[in-house]
């Protein structure tokens, strides 16, 4: 049987989609709206530094962010292809997944800097 990469991309897309659906609403609400706008008192620096500096947080966030980036890349690939009718198949795929892989390295670097 011929090996095909496409099923694995769909699997990663689904996994990242579930993670985004479950984790992003609360993370966005708290860190992008409630804390900056003072709806909820932001945590003091010592506490939040202890939370994001913990190795478990590092691993969880790296996993979550990587899956979400692959999910976004896969979906945006089809947005370009079907939605905006960009028919350069290989170029679109390379740009989307390349962007996601680059994003994973950025995530590794930024998360590592806080640990």
């Amino acid at each position, binding site marked *: 049987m011929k090996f095909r990469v496409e099923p694995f991309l769909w699997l990663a897309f689904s996994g990242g989609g579930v993670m985004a659906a479950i984790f992003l609403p609360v993370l*966005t609400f708290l860190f992008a709206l409630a804390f900056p706008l003072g709806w909820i008192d932001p945590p003091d620096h010592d506490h939040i530094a202890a939370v994001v500096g913990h190795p478990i947080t590092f691993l969880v966030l790296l996993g979550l962010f990587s899956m979400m980036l692959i*999910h976004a890349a896969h979906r945006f690939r089809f947005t370009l292809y079907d939605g905006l009718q960009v028919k350069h198949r290989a170029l679109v795929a390379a740009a989307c997944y390349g962007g996601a892989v680059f*994003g994973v390295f950025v995530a590794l670097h930024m998360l590592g800097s*806080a640990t």
Partner: protein
Amino acid sequence: MSTQTQEDLRFHRRVPVLWWIRKRSYFVFVMRELSSLFIAWLVLYLLLFVRSVGRGEQAYEDFLDWASSPWLVVLNVVAFAFVVLHTVTWFSLTPQAMVLAVRGRRVPPAAIIGAQYAGLVVVSAFILWLVTR
């Protein structure tokens, strides 16, 4: 029966770029697809947040100030709306994408959707507790 080859398929008529604004369901479909851009933005935003925390108290305060600037609040409100659209549409599509059976009987779609919302509540409560305690 069609005898089209891959080669023939290349000669299909081009679809207009704005084909999706003509019908509500197409529009919602494209909006749902566009959620990917906002998910990528929020991952970047959260990474910048983590980085600022790692750089010390002053950087953390500066980040919160920057995050409360009007254009960023507008962007994040829009991003939050797209995330909610993603969550709602994702949860309601799951039973169609995944058929679960327990002891040979199909789990009803409502149960799958309900379980996901329960997961959302538990995760949200845990994160709120973890960062604000």
